[in-house]
């Protein structure tokens, strides 16, 4: 960097340097904390579901909703760039859904969730699933105010999904490795994906799931500290 003179006078006035420490991502975090407080005050548990496009986020949420809807009052907030396909699929379970279309953005942010919560019947809920936009990069940068982060990947995405997107897994409490019924056809060993996750984030629970066969769904529910009806 070039060393400048002590004081410079420009046509617009005198030039000053202001040294400061302004966190650019703070505003999102502040709104996320606000969301978290709002949800906690209503006694609502919230789970942010993240994962790449087509990993099976919606199917996994649908499976969990179908198992939990008799013991929890559930709503799902669906984030997508456009369309209500996912929200319609979840709504077939007979629970309230809120579609958030991000338009051009590749992720949900805390402000979008704040707006979605405004139109969600919070007084009548115990549990909210937030399905993030399918993307393994951007959502990692934008906390929403959820209690848990569930990351869904699938064997059909190949063997390197975890090592290629490490940041997404660092803050996850639960990682579902989905579509294990297709593992043989894909020639992908789900155990290697689990090993990658536990190397990166030893605290995360890693569960092999298949929404077709129902494998692992109860374990995901258990790991999210939700209880199935007896």
């Amino acid at each position, binding site marked *: 960097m070039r060393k400048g003179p002590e004081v410079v006078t420009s046509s617009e006035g005198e030039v000053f340097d202001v040294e400061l420490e302004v966190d650019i991502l703070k505003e999102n975090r502040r709104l996320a904390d606000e969301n978290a407080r709002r949800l906690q005050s209503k006694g609502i548990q919230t789970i942010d579901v993240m994962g790449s496009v087509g990993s099976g986020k919606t199917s996994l949420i649908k499976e969990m909703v179908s198992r939990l809807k008799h013991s929890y009052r559930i709503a799902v907030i669906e984030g997508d760039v456009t369309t209500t396909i996912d929200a319609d699929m979840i709504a077939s379970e007979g629970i309230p859904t809120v579609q958030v279309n991000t338009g051009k953005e590749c992720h949900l*942010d805390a402000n979008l969730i704040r707006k979605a919560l405004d139109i969600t019947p919070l007084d009548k809920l115990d549990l909210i699933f937030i399905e993030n936009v399918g993307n393994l990069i951007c959502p990692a*940068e934008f906390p929403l105010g959820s209690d848990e982060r569930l990351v869904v990947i699938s064997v059909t995405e190949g063997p390197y999904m975890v090592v290629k997107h490490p940041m997404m897994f660092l803050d996850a409490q639960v990682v579902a490795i989905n579509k294990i019924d297709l593992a043989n056809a894909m020639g992908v060993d789900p155990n290697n994906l689990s090993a990658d996750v536990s190397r990166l984030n030893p605290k995360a629970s890693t569960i092999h799931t298949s929404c077709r066969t129902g494998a692992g769904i109860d374990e995901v529910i258990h790991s999210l500290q939700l209880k199935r009806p007896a």
Partner: protein
Amino acid sequence: MHELSIATSLVEALLEIAKKQAATKVLAVELRVGKLRLISLDQLRFSYEVLSKGTLLEGSRLTIEETPGFTRCPNCGFTKEFETGDASFHFALPTMKCPKCATDLKIEGGDECVITKVRMAIPSRPSEPRVRVGPM
């Protein structure tokens, strides 16, 4: 492309800082961005340039200092810099377990994204001098 939303927050924060100081023009901005943030600096610069057009940020110079990522072991104090220097960074990301005592490591640096300095033109001399212009 979340750089666009980060650049939007950056522009909003800068306009607020400029307003507080009653500045008429922002000439230069310094940022500190950790290497563990998933921020492409080229995209951030481009988004900033586009968004600053027509505001008093237009034409300002954006300097970005990158800070390395660090992990530290809360038990034995072992520290290691994240190897983020080359394209194979993702594969070189170390395990989050301490290699010495197997305790879970904590990320200690490299995840910030902050404005550290703003150079502005201010028409009327402030009653209290702000930090005077030094190297930038």
